[in-house]
């Protein structure tokens, strides 16, 4: 039963992370900002709405959001939270997980291209280009940790990271965490790669791809984005926070606290930095890869 806890936590509290990010950004901007539970209100509002479809679109446009959400939910099954094991784990599940997220992206992109809009084409093209560079960085980071912990199942990999490992391999673990964090920002369309709150279509990546979606479908997209933030977040937090006491209460609260801290950090990064020029994003992602390379070399 305890294995069901993490998927349930994720399904319930994933939008909360987005609320925390918004609150943090509002704090830095000197505003009061929307309440932390605003994303839930937004979702509820979207799920109550009808829909408008472009006459250019086909079934691909309608399938995109549903498939995205399906993958978000499916990923939770393979996701451990610190010491708490995943519902299902097997050797190589991290490969499967990353490819599932790729499938999600593929459908988001072709759903965007289905509208025939130049804006959405632009976003789709950028999303695909940057993720092609983000993926090797992600794999590199995970391969480094797989070698450190001697396993290629995500469950045992996260479980294998503890205080002792951090003490003996602090340099390489820290570098990998930094590399993965950069990938995390890119994958979740956050500053400095993408700005979810901008109002100019030309400058956006993820948000511009979903311009034409409305109502329930848009709700699916938002919810899936929240889940993705949680999924990648829990991997990073699992690596960065080596609390493995064996007492479920302490372990789980440490991880949840970690996720909240992560959300605050994203908020801070988003408040104190500007979005990078698009030409510089590849450099950032290659940089993320290099962090992991050094991490691999110095272990």
């Amino acid at each position, binding site marked *: 039963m305890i294995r069901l806890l993490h998927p349930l936590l994720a399904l319930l509290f994933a939008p909360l992370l987005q609320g925390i990010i918004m609150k943090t950004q509002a704090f830095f901007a000197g505003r009061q900002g929307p309440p932390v539970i605003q994303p839930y209100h937004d979702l509820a509002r979207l799920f109550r709405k009808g829909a408008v479809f472009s006459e250019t679109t086909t079934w691909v446009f309608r399938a995109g959001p549903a*498939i995205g959400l399906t993958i978000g939910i499916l990923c939770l099954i393979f996701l451990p939270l610190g010491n708490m094991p995943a519902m299902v784990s097997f050797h*190589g599940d991290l490969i499967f997980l990353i490819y599932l997220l790729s499938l999600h992206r593929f459908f988001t992109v072709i759903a965007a291209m289905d509208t025939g809009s130049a804006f959405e084409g632009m976003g789709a093209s950028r999303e*695909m280009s940057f993720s092609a560079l983000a993926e090797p960085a992600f794999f590199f980071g995970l391969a480094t940790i797989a*070698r450190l912990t*001697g396993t290629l199942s995500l469950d045992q990999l996260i479980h294998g990271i503890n205080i002792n490992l951090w003490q003996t391999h602090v340099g390489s673990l820290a570098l990998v965490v930094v590399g993965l964090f950069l990938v995390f920002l890119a994958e979740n369309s956050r500053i400095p790669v993408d700005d979810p709150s901008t109002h100019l279509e030309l400058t956006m990546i993820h948000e511009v791809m979903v311009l034409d979606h409305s109502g329930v479908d848009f709700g*699916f997209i938002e919810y899936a984005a929240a889940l993705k933030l949680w999924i990648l977040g829990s991997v990073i937090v699992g690596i960065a926070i080596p609390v493995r006491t064996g007492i479920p209460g302490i372990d789980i609260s440490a991880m949840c606290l970690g996720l909240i801290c992560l959300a605050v950090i994203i908020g801070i990064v988003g408040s104190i930095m500007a979005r990078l020029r698009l030409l510089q994003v590849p450099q950032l992602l290659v940089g993320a890869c290099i962090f992991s390379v050094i991490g691999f070399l110095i272990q």
Partner: protein
Amino acid sequence: MFPLLVSLGLMLFAAVVAIVPVAKPQTRAKLSAIIAVVADGIGLVPCVSVLTGHPGMTFVAPWQMPFCSFALNLDALSAFFLVPILGLSMAAAVFGVPYLRHATDEANLGAAWCSFHILVASMVTVMLAANGLLFLIAWELTVLSSFFLVVLDRDNEVNRQAGWIYLTASHLGTVFIILCFLLLERETGSLDFSAFSHAALLSPAFKGFLFLLAVLGFGTKAGFIPFHVWLPEAHPAAPSHVSALMSGVMIKTGIYGIVRILYFLGHPSPWWGWLLITIGLVSGVLGILFALSQNDIKKLLAYCSVENIGIIAMGLGLGLLGLSLGNRDVAVLGFAGGLLHVLNHAVFKGLLFLGSGAVLEQTGTRDMDRMGGLLKRMPYTGATFLVGCLSICGLPPFNGFISEFFIYFAAFAAVLNGSLSLAVPGLFIIVGLSLIGGLAASCFAKAFSIIFLGNPRQARAAEAQEVAWSMRGPMMVLASLCAVISFVAPSLLGIFERVLGVFPEFSTGPDVTSSLAQVATPLFIITASGFLFFTILGSIVMTRVGLLANRKVETSVTWDCGYAQPSVKMQYTGSSFSQPLVELFNSVLGTETQMSGVDGYFPRKGSFLSHSANIFIEKLFKPAFTRIETLSHRFSWIQNGVVQAYVFYITITLVFLLIGGLM
């Protein structure tokens, strides 16, 4: 063995039927295709039975040919390669009947079908041949028959050029194979494959040389970079169902050749693995980058074949490295991944080329930037093409993911292994494969969306209609195979056990089964989560339908920022979609762009042209061949056209031979 001989006979009979003028060309074409389908079906029976555990078969017939014997041998390795050859030929034959009716004129029809059947028959013979000379004869027939198909549309200058490049490259490659076989004959005393296995006892340096020759010779056929130059020229030029066959299975005969030679050479040296991994990484990454920069759909698919051959080479290279360094798991899983990718690539590349043929027939162009919105008009072609795209990007739940998963698994096993000499190549493969995966996703998101989504960019694309059922049928079968292979993957492990069991290196030492068993549980869970995926998707779709049931669902125009006159030309094109990545990697791609005209306050006309040249031809082969040409011109005085001089040469030669004989 008997069914395979019958099958070969039927194929040759079909080739005769296609050209003997007894009925109308269309009727003959249809008849010969039906015979070929039956022949393929008959041939599949013994292959499947060998793969499911029945013993291999041999057949030897007397043949008055020096150094040669008509020896055929069907073992699990041949059977494994024969299944995609026969299966895809079946699909291509069915697709070809209505397709060729539009693609070529009646005068060519007989020759086209005759070449097609000979191509299939010769590929089958290549797989079965157990004698070096027989192998080479069949190998040559493959090249010649496919050459005629490449230049079928001979009025087109580009196609003739492609044909010549293909013929030259293939023959240069064959030189190395001949050399390799002759050396093997010298060392083992016979051109029979059964004797070749004594080569395992040779010195490592000599074996390395033989391996190098095999990689050069067979690698040219397989399309390893930089020997791939013929591939993006020849494959698009052939009729689409033949392109499917060439890309799907013909280039795999090169892979078969390498693996077969490896089976003879016994214990490998580590550098063999390094070589194949390097070739694989270079071919994979460059192949997909070149594919990304193409606007011609068939050229894109051809370059993507180079990429997939790269993935196969990575798997085989990792297998070799594991074998030479004594890591059984890496060896078994690497080989299994590479071989499974051979099968998978045949299925999805066949599917994609057939899809491109359907699109070509309806729009009359290969230029993706003239298509668009075809999914509405060609729903079956579109849906099957999408399945092909997902599979080729290695995305779950389709078959491409399974073979890449094998290779990832082997690479991770190498990384987890203590020694750096195994871990570093493993890491390179993981990173290379993930980069290739990302680039492939971009490439095929582009291909699918520019062809099938959005609004039609040209009148012909707007008038396109769904193709005939006999063209849809093969595509639907191949698309469902993409899913089926993925879902039955756990039960395929037994087949690899038998295919690798033929390899002498695996027949000694620890069991292959235990290494393969490691992926059994993961594959089972992946399969199960495929079903779970559809269950969750189903419930989400139901929820969506329920939520939208009593609400207002409207249609409108695409959000255009309030711009009053949106036009189809404003859509993103293929070139613009791939622009960020092409620009980023331009130092290797050499894409040239020309832009003109947009200036002044009220610009009237503007044009933009981007073109990715085949830099290997331009920068490597053209200068080299020009150099050879100028050099050989210096000796042209020998060939002066005077008969007396030639008689003089002959006399001199004879005298020298005489002296040599006397001494």
